[in-house]
């Protein structure tokens, strides 16, 4: 793989990474990883550390402003590529976009009727647990939600098995994964506010 590197066409080359944000770079290529939904996390982390160790602007504080600015631009690019590769949802979106699937995170929602119904049920369940301040119910919902999220993730992995030809329903599957990620975020906030509430109640 490393033998395929051409300096001029390297994905982090400066033409591509100047911070106009206009050029869609490919994070898989940037980290020299195969395009696949399953990413070897320890390999990804190790490469991230190596790249930052070379390119963080802290390494250039004594080399003048120009070198420091250039390093900051590349380090920002490395951080962004890493953030995409380390996140299931963002990585899946990027894989779909590679194959020409249009993705508008603001407007797109899953078209699967069954899933839409499931979404409504989940929301109602969490809202009720929160409004009754029922910690046990929140915890139980959390465990099930984690399971549901794991199932959604498996479906995404299946739909993206062939990175060059994702299944037709891949986009819906990815949007479903996003739903669970967001709900888990909300659940985390609910847990925090319940923990705080219990604390002040105990005083």
């Amino acid at each position, binding site marked *: 793989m490393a033998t395929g590197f051409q300096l001029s066409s390297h994905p982090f080359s400066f033409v591509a990474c100047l911070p106009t944000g206009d050029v869609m770079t490919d994070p898989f290529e940037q980290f020299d990883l195969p395009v696949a939904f399953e990413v070897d996390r320890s390999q990804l982390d190790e490469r991230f550390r190596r790249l930052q160790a070379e390119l963080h602007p802290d390494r250039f504080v004594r080399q*003048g402003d120009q070198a420091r600015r250039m390093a900051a631009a590349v380090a920002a690019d490395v951080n962004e590529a890493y953030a995409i590769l380390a996140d299931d949802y963002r990585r899946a979106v990027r894989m779909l976009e590679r194959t020409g699937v249009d993705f508008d995170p603001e407007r797109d929602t899953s078209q699967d009727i069954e899933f839409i119904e499931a979404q409504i049920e989940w929301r109602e369940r969490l809202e009720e647990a929160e409004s009754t301040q029922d910690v046990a119910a929140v915890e139980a919902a959390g465990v099930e939600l984690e399971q549901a999220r794991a199932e959604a993730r498996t479906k995404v992995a299946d739909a993206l098995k062939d990175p060059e030809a994702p299944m037709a329903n891949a986009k819906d599957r990815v949007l479903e994964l996003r739903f669970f990620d967001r709900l888990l975020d909300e659940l985390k906030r609910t847990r925090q506010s319940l923990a705080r509430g219990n604390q002040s109640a105990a005083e």
Partner: protein
Amino acid sequence: MALLQITEPGAESAPHQRHLAAGIDLGTTHSLVATVRSGEADTLPDAEGRHILPSVVHYAADAVTVGHAAAEHAADDPHNTIASVKRLIGRGAHDVARLSGELPFRLKTGESSVPRIETVAGDKTAVEVSADILHTLRQRAEATLGDELEGVVITVPAYFDDAQRQATRDAAQLAGLNVFRLISEPTAAAVAYGLDQGEESTIAVYDLGGGTFDISILQLRRGVFEVLATGGDSALGGDDIDRAIADWLLNQAGMAGETDPQRLRRVLMAARQAKEALTEAESTPVEVVRADDSTWSGALDRSTLVTLAQPLLDRTMEACKQVLADAGLETGAIDEVVLVGGSTRMPAVREAVEGFFGRAPHAGIDPDRVVAIGAAQQADILAGNKPDTELLLLDVIPLSLGLETMGGLVEFIVPRNTTIPVTRAQEFTTFKDGQTAMSLHVLQGERDVVDANRSLAQFTLSGIPPMVAGAARIRVTFQVDADGLLNVTAREQTQGVEAHIEVKPSYGLTDSEIEQMLRDSASSAREDMEARRLREQQVEADRVLEALDAALATDGDRYLEPEERNTIEHARDALREEREKGSDPDAIEAARKRVEKASEAFVARRMNDSIRRALAGHNVSEYDAGN
């Protein structure tokens, strides 16, 4: 002040020459400067052997005093004696209006967005007052080390937002300091204890100073220090314990209701001395002089002190619970506890912290100096004195950054805890037919509604070609550098109309204001402005020349055609010549810019190559491991 050494033309700097660097803890009540010497980081004392510099500045009509001497004026000249200025830095008129009742000096919040303090030496901003403190620390370091500092690392609270970080940087610039990096105070404390060496850990930093209490939960994961949550109380500290002891003493001595400020101050002093004595002793004698000049003699023991301090300790523990809840953690998840701040010397505080977290805290380093010491270690690495070290402190942005959208809502562009530096862009569109301008309001905070967040800046992108609503594509790019400082640019995509706006925080100072301050400031009156600019240009030229010579020596043959190399060397020689002449800062700057332009492709090729090596190096070991 020592002038820079002029090196012989073509002479390489000695390979093991140490680069002078320092760490600065710019605190609310006191400040310190530390540096690494003979491999050991320690704080530097003043001529009288005192390490702590009270963060107090006194302005007289013709003199500025900083530190202990300034603090002596607190009683007789409160309006011109500025303390706790850190509470104001990077703050707008609106924020400080709430504080002004608590502060003894006079604030002007009229015409400018940056509040000013009225003194006999003229109106002062928090940036200028902080610069006077930094200038004193710089002089102390340079007097001790015998030469100019190449750069410093300055610590800021983990929760400092963009405006407060920017203002701190401005103060450093005003004090003539080159800032390598701003790092958060709890991170510096963790570095001082070497906790960055570990693989993965969750660290609680308990910081009880004289007047403030901060609790931070840090997570170290894969070389990234992440601040999971911060909390505390900005009006809680060791001073409150002093007051509790003083009240007890007044009661014991039958002086309840005493109002004479002189006597009250003496009782407070006695209280503080007793508290400090009890760090070592189990019991300490105390004397208080009454109004009739009779003396009350008694003793204060540890158990009484614990009783008196308990309400305050309980409040800090409540804050610890709160911050753990915010981080979504149980106390058992904390692997390390670090103590910061003079008040953590009290055995009662240590016991309470140990009891709460269920593990003994790190306390081997003087808690007043630990932040400065960690900053000094990081400064030493950044200065290039430890070429073999792999340590890299990656930081995250403490608060989310976003833009105001329709209906007073916030669209987040860079969420909190994103690793920095980072560049993120998002597209927006017009909502009216024929709209030719768009107002952009930059915000920082976690709330969905604009008013609940901090307004950082507002600017307008104009010259958008008239189109139907929703047709224009305005791309807004947020760039956050390694210090957490933000730059925002906006560009209309379809017609290519561009508006690059350097965002200065609403509560920050403009470049021209800073330039004016440089001219006016007491610190630069002692140094000629032109001489200073010349020196800055010389330093930057030296940096560029040194880096370029080293790069040409190692990689010149590999990446440069003879003609390219010729062009670069030509520009370099011209710069060196201008640098040697050493008379015209503008000429040096122009020559340096030409060198930078000529070598841009060379720098880029080398950087690309380090990327290739970083990845390829790994492939080799992987290959070995896999076979």
